[in-house]
């Protein structure tokens, strides 16, 4: 029983990482329908931000706290530049967007190799996040323990979801983002500067990728291709959750994380991955629109 709970907690922590990555995509891909293949490189930029900040601020705890907003700004700024220079010219050409942003991803990876070198680099985790806490003590040595870093990532993911949900619902910018996504022409004709809203949406979506990058430094090394390795899973989370559905993204991120963890327990990592992908393919055959869609009486 302890083992099952242990796998579930591992799944939740995998889900939290997936969620952090997918949150940014739920804006740029889910809400704006832009397939940005460079999103993974914004995650990488966030991770390298921690590395750079730690060269300046040696205290691991302080540097992590400083790196969070800095990574958001760095990745957000990269997103805005990409949107302004390339993506806004390609909104009606999704396949061109995919190819162009893939090219940008390759350029950014090479840039990271040139600046930081090809081998992976490590950052120091704060002492507070290096241990683990015991959730349940069985007395026979099979205690249920959760790594502090994983709990931190889970908290960060939930805070990001809460901030994004509140921001989209309660702020003027959030209303404008939702309006532009739902009916771009009507939004423009209602007096909303849609180009500016697109840029802000990209800034927030890319900034969230930066935050995800910071979180990933706590569970693995930093390398030029670290974003590429995990971005496909994040795209799947957004698609299966339902395009533009934050609620779906949250549920599917945790569901996929737990499924991966539980299947891994009885098979291997590779087999678990194949089984998860097959399940997703079967699910999308049954429900191609994803887990959630909204009911309307009108098309617009």
């Amino acid at each position, binding site marked *: 029983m302890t083992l099952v709970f242990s796998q579930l907690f591992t799944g939740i922590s995998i889900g939290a990482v997936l969620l952090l990555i997918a949150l940014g995509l739920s804006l740029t891909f889910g809400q704006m329908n832009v397939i940005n293949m460079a999103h993974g490189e914004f995650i990488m930029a966030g991770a390298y931000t921690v590395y750079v900040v730690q060269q300046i601020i040696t205290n691991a705890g302080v540097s992590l706290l400083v790196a969070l907003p800095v990574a958001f700004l760095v990745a957000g700024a990269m997103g805005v530049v990409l949107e302004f220079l390339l993506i806004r010219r390609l909104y009606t050409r999704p396949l061109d967007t995919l190819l162009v942003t893939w090219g940008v991803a390759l350029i950014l990876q090479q840039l990271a190799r040139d600046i930081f070198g090809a081998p992976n680099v490590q950052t120091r985790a704060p002492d507070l996040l290096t241990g683990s806490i015991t959730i349940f003590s069985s007395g026979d040595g099979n205690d249920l323990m959760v790594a502090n870093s994983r709990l931190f990532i889970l908290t960060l993911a939930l805070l990001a979801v809460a901030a994004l949900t509140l921001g989209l619902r309660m702020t*003027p910018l959030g*209303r*404008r983002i*939702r*309006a532009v996504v*739902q*009916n771009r*022409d*009507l*939004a*423009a*004709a*209602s*007096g*909303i*500067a*849609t*180009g500016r809203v697109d840029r802000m949406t990209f800034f927030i979506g890319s900034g969230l990728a930066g935050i995800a990058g910071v979180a990933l430094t706590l569970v693995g090394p930093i390398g030029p291709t670290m974003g590429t390795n995990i971005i496909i899973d994040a795209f799947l989370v957004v698609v299966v959750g339902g395009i533009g559905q934050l609620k779906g993204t949250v549920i599917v991120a945790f569901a996929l994380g737990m499924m991966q963890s539980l299947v891994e327990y009885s098979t291997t990592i590779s087999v678990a991955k194949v089984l998860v992908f097959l399940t997703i393919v079967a699910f999308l055959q049954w429900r191609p629109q994803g887990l959630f869609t*909204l*009911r*309307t*009486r*009108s*098309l*617009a």
Partner: protein
Amino acid sequence: MLEFDGIDVGYGRSVVLHDLSLAARDGGVTAVLGHNGAGKSTLLRAAIGLLKPRAGTIRLDGADITGLAPHQRVARGMAYVPQGQQSFPHLTTAENLQLIADGRRNGKAATAEALGLFPALAGLMNRRAGLLSGGQRQQLAIARALITEPRLLLLDEPTEGIQPSVVAEIEQTILSLAGRGGMSVLLVEQHVGFAVRAAGRYYVLEAGRVTSSGQGGEDAESAVREALAV
């Protein structure tokens, strides 16, 4: 007030409006009538800036606005209610209105005034716009446009596909808005009756060209019907 001077407008390779010139005058209603496909909606989309003319000029109060983006035209006093009771379907009625009021100095008062014209909306504030009936959505669309306190309201077939009781209410609102001064209406309609009666001036479009124009009013109805029957 708003002048189209020799504009060509189209989609892709097809040209819908050909060398079209007409003017919506300051005050009252100007009606543009025509059958389906005549180019009426294209004219309004060009007016608000959703379509760029390939040739010609659009002027507002004498100033060239041809190259301005839609939000810049709204800032200059234009508002647009598109065809088909369009709304932001996943936003509530309140959010649909708040969205436009955000950042406007007079946003709250303008929203209250718009709701005063359509009191039925007050009871639907927490309902998603996509779940409203066609008539309610059209009232919401007009209310949204009015929050910008426009000097020129562009209305694209505002009563199309709406139940008769709501049609009467919308027509009455258009008349009262146009009659109280400070706002002009450019009304695009397929059905002659109300539009010609309400209009100070009318234009008939056919295949993207003005084929007939004149003073509006009760007396003009038969002339317009004749022009449209050709």
